[in-house]
């Protein structure tokens, strides 16, 4: 997202996101009166968010900071905090803090 900012593209993307977010919320509540009985479909939908979030995190998290060493430190801290059931914000800021400290220490080495 550099200097030549394309508003048509960005706003189309936002509109697309809004549409495909609203549709799955709207259709069942508005039109369907029966429960999904197919066990495969129910199970598939149950696991999908976890698969998607994992795919988005790995390996992308390793390239999210100025160097892989600090990213690994951030990843480890985030996993530990998440494992201890800390809130989303605590885990996110904990990872940020760990990366910040790691980057300062790496300069000293």
């Amino acid at each position: 997202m550099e200097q030549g900012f394309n508003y048509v593209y960005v706003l189309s993307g936002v509109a697309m996101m809004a549409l495909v977010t609203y549709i799955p919320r709207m259709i069942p509540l508005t039109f369907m009166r029966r429960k999904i009985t197919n066990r495969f479909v129910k199970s598939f939908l149950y696991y999908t968010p976890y698969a998607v979030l994992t795919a988005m995190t790995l390996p992308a998290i390793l390239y999210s900071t100025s160097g892989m060493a600090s990213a690994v430190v951030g990843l480890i801290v985030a996993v530990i905090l998440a494992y201890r059931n800390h809130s989303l914000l605590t885990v996110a800021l904990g990872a940020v803090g760990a990366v910040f400290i790691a980057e300062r220490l790496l300069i000293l080495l």
Partner: protein
Amino acid sequence: MVSNIKDEFSNGLRDGIPICLGYVSVAFTFGLMCTENGLPFWIAVLISLTNLTSAGQFAGTALIIAGGGLLEIGITTFVINLRYMLMSLSISQKVDANLSVPKRMAMSFGVTDEIFGVSMQKKGNITFAYFMGLMILPILGWSGGTLVGAVAVSLLPDMVRSALGIAIYGMFLAIIIPPARTERAIAWVIAIAGLISCVLYYVPLFNSISGGWMIIICAVVTSSIAAILWPVPDEEEASA
């Protein structure tokens, strides 16, 4: 009857307060991410206001920032949001059968993981007034938090901003890891999805596949495997 509607509405408002507080902090980080990646603050707020979702809008926004194709953005966001169909369906079982289509469509906008969870705890039918009350504060918290986060980033020094790149992934980990502790199937889903994602990313053969499609392939393959190996117990969704 009128006072009944008022009661339902204020009960909804009250139940929405904790959701709102939770949303403010997450939305704040979302606003930070957007500005950090060069999006104007009003686009960040527009995304939060029109999407009202976490994972889906994070993923979609990440793809917009990366310059992904519209179809890619649409399919990725849609796949992540497929779970709302289950929630929307569950809510449809708990509303008055005579509830009008426009009211149902208005309620649909507020179906998020948290609003769904709270509304399903309500005894008896979910009324339109209750659900509207429940939606309002979370919507304000989500949009307002985004605004504050988006504006705040310009006040931060560079070395703090470089560390913020990891925040979004920290949030994702905070969503997926706690349930993996108690449900072995989810732990396996994370392991399988992580493996497939890394293979698609690092094996040169798959270089031509873009990020959005990698996520879709990964989600469909992993969820299918998990649905076959660990089908969810019947009626679990209704009581969850």
